């Protein structure tokens, strides 16, 4: 079994806000992240898949194919977008780094041929990142 990791980058805007709370409560919990004008980050996505090495190709998965899947399922949807307003899963969930990792897992699960999704890691900044290993993991 080999773990293979592919990176991709996207740049997006977001803000943190819970509609059930008052403005004061939102700012108390989320601080400057609650600014309704939004702010942005250069995110780095690391997708790790687990699989066995194909004896013919020597690959776990075709990297070009994996790159295309990440582009189609994630980057083309998230890059240069406002996550709160333009990405459907964040209409009902706050686009924290944790929730972005979970949302990307759900976008990718079952879509990568010949390998099992092992981990989704999302860097909001080099010093802050979240990992998700799937439901129940």
């Amino acid at each position: 079994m080999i773990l293979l990791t592919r990176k991709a980058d996207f740049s997006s805007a977001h803000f943190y806000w819970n509609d059930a709370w008052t403005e004061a409560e939102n700012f108390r919990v989320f601080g400057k992240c609650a600014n309704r004008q939004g702010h942005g980050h250069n995110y780095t996505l690391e997708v790790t898949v687990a699989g066995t090495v194909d004896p013919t190709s020597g690959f776990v998965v075709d990297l070009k194919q994996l790159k295309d899947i990440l582009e189609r399922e994630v980057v083309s949807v998230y890059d240069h977008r406002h996550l709160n307003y333009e990405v459907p899963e964040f209409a009902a969930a706050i686009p924290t780094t944790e929730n972005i990792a979970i949302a990307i897992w759900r976008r990718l699960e079952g879509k990568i041929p010949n390998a099992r999704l092992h981990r989704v890691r999302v860097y909001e900044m080099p010093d802050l990142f979240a990992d998700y290993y799937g439901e129940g993991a």
Partner: protein
Amino acid sequence: MRPIAHLNRRYHFSASHRLHVDSISPDRNREMFGKCNNPFGHGHNYVAQVTFAGPVDATTGMVTNLSDLDAFAQRELLDVFDHANLNTFECFRDIVPSTENLCVELWRIFEPYPHANLKRIRVEETGNNSFDYFGEGAPLSHEE
């Protein structure tokens, strides 16, 4: 069931230390610790990477509020360790302040954090060496 995510945060501090054991001879200390045994000490820009796991709160979207974790780290770690000499600390009175021992000490510091479960302490001493600790008796995990 709410999904479990792992949150990773990196904290930077600069500290000095010297690797030396009083109970063995100066020659043996030099042999064992090399340049790290320099009597005047030396220093590093350390990075402490902490990993916490927990259910993602449905109202905040978070494992733990970063401002709580940052305040905890500032008070318990950075205010104590940054620009300090590790050899002067009570916890390193009887053991060398190696990065391995530093990992164990940081586990002791972060483990009581009340809002999420500590899963790993990683300390990078330089860009080329780092050490992981998963807690007493925990199986090794090689996720990187």
